[in-house]
């Protein structure tokens, strides 16, 4: 891996940049320039939009942290395309199934990422897809069971290139 790091090139290469380095650098600078400036938040901090959306979703019910597997990479190099998968333990029968699952972001300009509405015929409360992240943050998946109970799962992702366009 050391060999491929552009910062550790042999000294005779001097200050010349390859065309690829230059294009890559300028593309990202351009994207960064057009992004609105987000207020810098410390790790673990949550936007007020998130708090609002979370309160609206849960109301006076408090989710228990169990039965939800929320998988995301620990480190996402590109915030534009971060793979995720969620699976909620449930028999998915008419008597006992997962009604819906919502993914909330604590650091994106808009807190809700997606809401999945299931039915017993979904067979399994498991989904995967790809999402955008503006910066390093926590994500929460809140699942509502047909009984009205809420369960949740949390994941933290470190984002290297803060969601170019996110």
């Amino acid at each position, binding site marked *: 891996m050391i060999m491929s790091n552009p910062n550790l090139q042999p000294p005779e290469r001097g200050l010349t940049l390859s065309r690829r380095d230059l294009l890559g650098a300028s593309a990202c600078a*351009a994207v960064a320039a*057009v*992004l*609105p400036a987000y207020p810098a938040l410390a790790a673990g901090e949550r936007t007020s939009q998130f708090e609002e959306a979370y309160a609206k979703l849960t109301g006076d019910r408090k989710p228990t942290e169990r039965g939800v597997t929320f998988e995301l990479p620990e480190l996402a190099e590109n915030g*534009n*395309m*971060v793979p995720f998968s969620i699976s909620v333990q449930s028999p*998915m029968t008419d008597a006992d199934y997962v009604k819906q699952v919502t993914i909330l*972001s604590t650091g*994106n*300009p*808009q807190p*809700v*990422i*997606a*809401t*999945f*509405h*299931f*039915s*017993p*015929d*979904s*067979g*399994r409360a*498991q*989904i*995967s*897809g*790809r*999402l*955008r*992240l503006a910066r390093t943050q926590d994500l929460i998946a809140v699942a509502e069971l047909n009984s009205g109970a809420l369960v949740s799962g949390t994941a933290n992702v470190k984002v290297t290139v803060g969601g170019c*366009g*996110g």
Partner: protein
Amino acid sequence: MAQTPTPKIRMPATAKAGEVVEVKTLISHEMESGNRKDKDGKAIPRKIINKFTAKFNGNELMTVDWFPAISANPYQSFFVRVPESGTFTFEWLDDDGAVYKAEQKVTVS
């Protein structure tokens, strides 16, 4: 838009009665978030697919609300139960009202 969004579906064409199978879907769409600005500083208007629906023989199995934080060219995989032979239909609803459709027949053996 450069081209009409094209949906792609991957799921088994045969299944046992009552079997739960995985469906993988992909559609080409730029999912413009509405947060970006062009080089003159003007906001680029939002244009995303905001709803996905999966049906079996006309009955709704699953719907998904998408927001701007879904990546361009949205990929999604999920599961469905196959009760009998029939047709699965999948629909994507665009912000501009357009609906993109795909379907897949599944035979119960």
